[in-house]
Structures are given as structure tokens and as C-alpha cells.
């Protein structure tokens, strides 16, 4: 493993953007970072709130219309290489908010996330479990390591 990949694997800065789901996934992610039981820092994942520092963007929620532009801007602000992890059923396919009324198009939801920004890893679950989130972050790692 080259020095580049090694250093990327040893310090992953993750940013959390929450785009209007139900708070459930969101709190589980914060739980994964803050609770000593899960403690994401032991897997070298650090929580940051600054897109310029981040490598991994964790997106939850179905992306409501108001959140579409901020999400794009934050994605653009992250320097390459970057990875996006969509977390939770809403981020993956719009969740109940987009799908429960069948084929009628939703007026509120612009998502799911992969219609707004490119997604590299998907973590299913409603709400996602902290263990799954850590697994998802690990799944996105090879992308970061192999990038230029």
C-alpha cells in the first residue's frame, strides 16, 4: 500500500448532511460517532462540519426541494477525492414520503439522493443501525484509496 492510500485509510473525515427525513437515521449516525459503544473514531472516522475538510459525505433523508441546492453546493465544496454514502431508506429510494402514494409524483421530494449527486455507497435500513453505517463507510473506502 502506498503512502497515499495508507494515509487516506488512517484518517477519514466524514461530514453529515441531513436533507429532511425523520431524524431517525440522523440520530443513529450521531450515536455511531458519539456513543462510546460504537465510537467511530476507533475506525479512524472523524466527524467534521466543514465540507473543505471532509472526504466522505454522509447523506440522510429524501432530499426535499429546499435541500436540493444546499446539498449540491456542499458536494461541490468538498475537494477530490470524495465519496458519498447515502444512508437510510429515504436516501436510497425516497422512502415512504415518495412512494406511499404510488405513481403520483411527489411535490415535496426532489430525491432520492442519487438523482441529485452521485452516490458511491448505499446503506439500507429504516432507521439505519450504527453498525451498518460503519460497514457502509468501510465499503466506500476503496474508492477513496484508489483515487488519484
Amino acid at each position: 500500500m502506498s503512502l497515499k492510500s495508507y494515509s487516506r485509510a488512517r484518517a477519514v473525515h466524514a461530514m453529515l448532511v441531513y436533507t429532511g427525513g425523520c431524524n431517525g437515521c440522523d440520530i443513529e449516525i450521531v450515536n455511531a460517532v458519539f456513543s462510546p459503544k460504537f465510537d467511530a473514531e476507533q475506525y479512524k472516522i472523524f466527524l467534521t462540519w466543514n465540507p473543505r475538510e471532509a472526504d466522505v459525505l454522509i447523506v440522510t433523508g429524501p432530499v426535499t426541494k429546499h435541500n436540493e441546492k444546499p446539498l449540491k453546493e456542499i458536494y461541490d465544496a468538498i475537494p477530490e477525492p470524495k465519496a458519498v454514502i447515502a444512508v437510510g431508506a429515504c436516501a436510497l429510494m425516497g422512502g415512504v414520503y415518495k412512494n406511499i402514494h404510488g405513481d403520483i409524483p411527489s411535490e415535496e421530494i426532489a430525491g432520492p439522493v442519487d438523482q441529485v449527486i452521485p452516490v458511491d455507497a448505499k446503506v439500507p435500513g429504516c432507521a439505519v443501525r450504527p453498525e451498518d453505517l460503519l460497514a457502509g463507510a468501510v465499503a466506500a473506502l476503496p474508492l477513496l484509496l484508489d483515487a488519484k
Partner: protein
Amino acid sequence: MDENDKPKRQEVIETEVTMGTVHSAAIEPYRVRLFVEDEIVRDAEITVGLNHRGIERIMEGLPVEKANSLTEKICGICSNSHIWNSVLVAEKGLGIEIPERASYIRIIMGELERLHSHFLYLAHGNEVLGHETFAMRLFYIRETVMELLRMIGGNRVQYGVSIIGGVRPRCELDLMRIQKISEGMDLIEQKITEFADRFVSDPMIMSRITGVGVLTKKDALRLAATGPTLRSTGVDLDLRRDMEIYDPFEFDVITQEDGDVKSNLLMRVLEIPESIKIIRQALKNLPSGPITDRSWEMQDTGIIKSYIEVPRGKLLHSYALEEGRVRGSIVRTPSITNIGAMQQACIGNHISDAQLAIVQCDPCFTCTDRAIKITQIQI
């Protein structure tokens, strides 16, 4: 707002500092505009709307069972409260008497949810205070509650316990579960007592939170604050006393006098033992019998309203039933009425305390983004 209640020194507002929509202190998306003069907040405006998913509109015309489980997705913190109240509306309309054991299990779930919500509140408060160690400690204690919720409901967040006529069969409390819950309660009571001693005797934290984000009793009533935010200003109002199913239980309603961050945080710390008390009584006196009554029949109803007390205050669900489908659904969550209190609590504080003053009202902006009609309250 009354004319004489407007901030007196409006003309000296110098600059505006905007936080949001993604911010480290507020995990949820909302925007707060703080109008500051020399780093002291003179006026504040909270803009919501980023979370609006139009759940009431989606609910229109859905079968009532489906609509009930959709209400759970309004909020991930108090999901059980939403489905509980939504089911209560249908039960009230259809005249269903649920088995006593089912209502006990609902109360146990409701109080467990209050526990996890209060722990989350305290942890978030400490995180905004900048005290990472206490935040992690509280998340660690909260994990016990989350495990109990997962054991009963099958999921850590959205556990869907209540259904029309009782509770889901998978949520039956057998002896092993009862024992585990009571063990968990002992553990939490011990931990929260230790934490409270440590918290109250810390001079740095106390000087940081005393007298910050003060909400007076008059303002709280005028701005229609509800729940713990209202009780922290000295108003003794808890809907649990008026709810029939809470009648067999003994518990105290906690009130504080000052309405600042300190009394809000202590409020939650003191409410946790009360919830534990209720859960212990429910486990001790748990009646035997079935947990679901399936003998009800669907019929059309008029608009039914139901209020319950949830961790953040008074929750209203209301809809009418027509051929088994939901019509004209209205949800009024406690957080939306607390927004006025949040703005008021910001005023007069240092800008670092502004987020703390918002957090002290226990905001939940996913609950908040509802379609509402605002009217003036006369006191």
C-alpha cells in the same frame, strides 16, 4: 407580537449572523438569523420549511392502518408518540375499548421513549455546551434504553408498537422482557443519579448555563410554549394527568421556576426518575389477558381530535374516517408551538449561547414542518 413586547433597542441592530442550513450545533436543517449588536443577540428569526414532506397530504385517502404507520415517520425521536396518538384517534372514533394490558404496554413504551428523548436532549445540550465528555457519557447511558426499545419493538428507532385495538403481538411482554426492563431501569436510575450529582456540582457548567436563555412565564404563555419548556417557567401543566390511562399511576409533575437553560436541563434530569417510577409501577401491576382486540368494525366518523403528552409537550392528531380511509388529517406537534419560545429565548444572550437557547426548547424540526394556521393568543 404586542407592540410593547418588541425588542426595545431595535434601531441599534448592526449586523446579522446567519447559521444554517447545515450547522454543527444544529444537526437538523433549519436556518436561524441572529441580529446582533456587539455579539449580543437583539432579535432572532428561525426559518423552517426544509423538512416539509407534506405528510398530511400524503395521508389523505390512505387506509387508516397505513396512515397510522406513516405518522410514525413524522419524527424519528418521538415516533411512538405519533403512532400512539394517531391510533387513539381511530379508537376514539370507532369506540374501541382496548385491553388493559395493551394500554399498560403502550405506557411503558411511551415512558421508555421519554427516557431516550430526554437523554438525547441532555447529550445534545452538553454537546452544544462544548462538553464532549458528558455528551458521550449520556449517549452511553442512553444505549441501555435503546437496547430495551429494540428488544420490545424489534427496531432501534421506528418500533411501531400500537395498532388499532391494542399493541402488536410481537410486543408482548413476557417474564424475561419484564426482568430485563426492570434491570435496565435500575441501571439507568443509578447512572442518572451519579450524572446529576456530577453535573450540578460542576462550577464551570453551572456558570455557563445559569441565567442563559431565560424565558419568562408571561412570554412562555404568550408564545404558546408547551411541555417541559412551559413547565420550566413555573407553569404546572402536564397532559398526562388528564389522560385516563395514566390514572392508575403515581407520579410527580416536575416544574422549575427560572425558565433558563439550567432549569430546562435539570427539568429533564428530574423527569427521568419519574418516568422510571411509572415504568416500575406498570411492570409491577401489569394485568394479564390479551393484548389486542380485533373485534372492532370499521365505520365512518366525523373529525376526531386526540391530545396526548409526549416528551416535548402537547401533541394533536386529528382526522375523519370515510370507508376506512383517512380524510382531513391534521397534526400539530409540540415543537411548532415552541418556535416562538426559541426565538424569544435567544434574545439578550451572547451569540455563543444562542444555539444553546434554541436547544433548551428541545427542537425537533422534522416534527415542526407541518402546515399550520397561526392565530394570536390573548392572555
